[in-house]
């Protein structure tokens, strides 16, 4: 055992003496990142000093650590892709990358990771980009503390901030993404962790899942996007403690679930969205400890949703709590707090004695004739809602919260 340790120590010592540091600056012998990479040996460190380097198509084909000092600018001059990583164990840290080329045939990225393992991308600032960080067919990487600010206006000619394609076990933390098409986009990517990111003002979605399973996203903020988060065709996604805010507009949602199975949605906050959660064809999902405040629709269910459970959530001052477009229901609502609840609690056990019916007739009418929204909160509407509550005809009659809470839930 002792021998083994000393052996490893010896190897480490040896490698640290072999690994060299190469400096890149305008007046140094090596004045471009490309030259530095060709001259570097495996496991060398390249330090890029402050300055502007007009380079693109930089290919990192060996395990290197590239560190920028005081944010050197790598300017792609809109000619194409800027950095491509095709080797394992690459670290890129502290660069300011701007002017990625736009193309309608190729997805140029500021930094692309291709078929690599154990990469580490951190502290980058990306501006004027097409795609930001594009990770394809790679695994076990980390993307930390990056700031991506695009200038996307239209969906068809803009790219995504951080895109994962056929990748596994990637950690994306503390990134700040703004003004791109999709803030973070996962396609065919499993076991990823997306944590503490802020994704705002994006043209399409703050975060977008497609055919990706077993991923977790938590403590993220999605504000003012075309739609907050779209989770589509994925299984076993965990969504914890995220904030979805001010996603306003016609097709705008805090969260869009389409063909999602076995997910967990716990402890999220949905605030001032046109639709808090829009659900289509999603089954066996647990909604727990979420707070829906001041949304147009807290939850809109569009059919083919079975055995979902909505337990212990707060529904506060939403124009509509739940909307259904049919009168069939297979979902369970229990122990939620509804600010619109008007029942009483005679036995003082904190649970209302009369069940609460979260679906109103008016939400059914608005679904059919959207212009009638202008009659919201009118006395006539209150009267027909009341009569529907007494004898449901158009809304599912078994959709009840049998244990509505009297006081707002806190956890």
């Amino acid at each position: 055992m002792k021998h083994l340790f000393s052996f490893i120590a010896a190897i480490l010592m040896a490698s640290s003496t072999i690994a060299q540091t190469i400096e890149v600056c305008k007046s140094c012998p090596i004045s471009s990142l490309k030259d530095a990479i060709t001259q570097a040996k495996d496991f060398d460190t390249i330090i890029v000093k402050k300055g502007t380097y007009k380079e693109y198509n930089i290919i990192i084909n060996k395990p290197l650590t590239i560190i920028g000092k005081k944010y050197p600018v790598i300017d792609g001059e809109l000619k194409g892709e800027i950095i491509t990583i095709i080797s394992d164990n690459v670290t890129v840290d502290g660069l300011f990358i701007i002017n990625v080329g736009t193309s309608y045939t190729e997805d140029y990225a500021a930094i692309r990771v291709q078929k690599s393992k154990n990469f580490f991308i951190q502290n980058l600032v990306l501006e004027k980009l097409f795609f930001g960080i594009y990770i394809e067919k790679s695994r076990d990487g980390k993307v930390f503390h990056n700031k991506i600010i695009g200038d996307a206006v239209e969906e068809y000619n803009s790219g995504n901030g951080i895109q994962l394609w056929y990748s596994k076990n990637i950690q994306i933390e503390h990134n700040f993404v703004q003004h791109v098409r999709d803030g973070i986009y996962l396609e065919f990517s499993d076991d990823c962790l997306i944590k503490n990111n802020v994704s705002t003002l994006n043209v399409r979605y703050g975060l977008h899942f497609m055919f990706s399973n077993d991923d977790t996203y938590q403590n993220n903020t999605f504000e003012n996007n075309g739609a907050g988060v779209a989770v589509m065709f994925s299984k076993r996604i965990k969504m914890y403690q995220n904030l979805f805010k001010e996603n306003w507009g016609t097709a705008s949602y805090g969260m869009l679930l389409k063909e999602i199975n076995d997910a967990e949605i716990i402890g999220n906050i949905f605030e001032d969205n046109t639709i808090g959660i829009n659900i289509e064809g999603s089954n066996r999902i647990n909604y727990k400890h979420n707070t829906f405040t001041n949304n147009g629709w807290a939850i809109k269910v569009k059919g083919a949703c079975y055995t979902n459970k909505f337990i212990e959530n707060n529904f506060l001052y939403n124009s509509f709590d739940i909307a259904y477009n049919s009168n069939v229901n297979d979902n369970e609502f229990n122990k939620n707090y509804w600010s619109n609840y008007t029942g009483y609690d005679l036995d003082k056990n904190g649970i209302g004695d009369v069940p609460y019916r979260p679906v109103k007739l008016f939400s059914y009418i608005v679904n059919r004739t959207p212009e009638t929204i202008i009659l919201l909160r009118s006395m006539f509407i209150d009267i027909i809602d009341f009569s529907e509550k007494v004898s449901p005809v158009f809304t599912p009659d078994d959709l009840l919260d049998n244990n509505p809470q009297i006081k707002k839930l806190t956890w």
Partner: protein
Amino acid sequence: MLKILKYSFYDLMRSRWSYVYFAFYLLLGVVLLFLNNDLSKAVITLMNVIIILVPLIGTIFGVMYYYNSKEFTELLLAQPLKRSSIFLGQYLGVALSLSMSLILGLGIPFMFYGLFKSSAIWDFSLLLITGTFLTLIFTALAFNIALSNENKIKGFGYAILLWLFLAVIYDGLFLMTLIMFEDYPLDKLSLVGTMLNPIDLSRTLILLKLDISALLGYTGAVFKQFFGTNFGLIVSFIMLTVWVVLPVLRITFKAKKKDF
């Protein structure tokens, strides 16, 4: 006119009904704020009160005052006074005393609650402004009804009917029209329909504050312009003013021609 206004105003200030009205709002405000402890909920309840109760009280009170002070009015008519100033003075006396009860009754509890420090101050002032507008409109409508009907019972009946129509029946007809013509683009129609009813108009004004996230969910350029910008607010206020001016003009017109 100012003298008559002053007289009517003081007369009403001394009357029991103003105090009852004032006490009612005071109580409502206190109960909502101090027992509920939730400002957002209080504002929603207040909205319901304002768009239903204020018009009702305005109509009933207006008709009642007119019939009650009829003898005094006849006495005034014998004096060398302009008819329009007699009736406008009375109208303004009633409308202003009602508005004052409303503003003070709701304002005082909210002031003690610490409204000036809270962010709800704009929602709340909007509520009070629409409440005042509704008082002005419905008192004027009530005076119109009373002027056109010598029979007290008939006058009261019409007044109640008017309130019922604008508060409930109109919305029912409106909803049916919208559903019937659902295949056509309806956003202009629905906005025009709203403009034609002062209660709906005030409701829309308040919705702009409370439910804007739901309203923005509907596609339609006209809707979007109306609700998404200040355009809606401005147009609604202009329409409310028109709704005050038209009945008042009819009061003066009718008063000039009427035989006593």
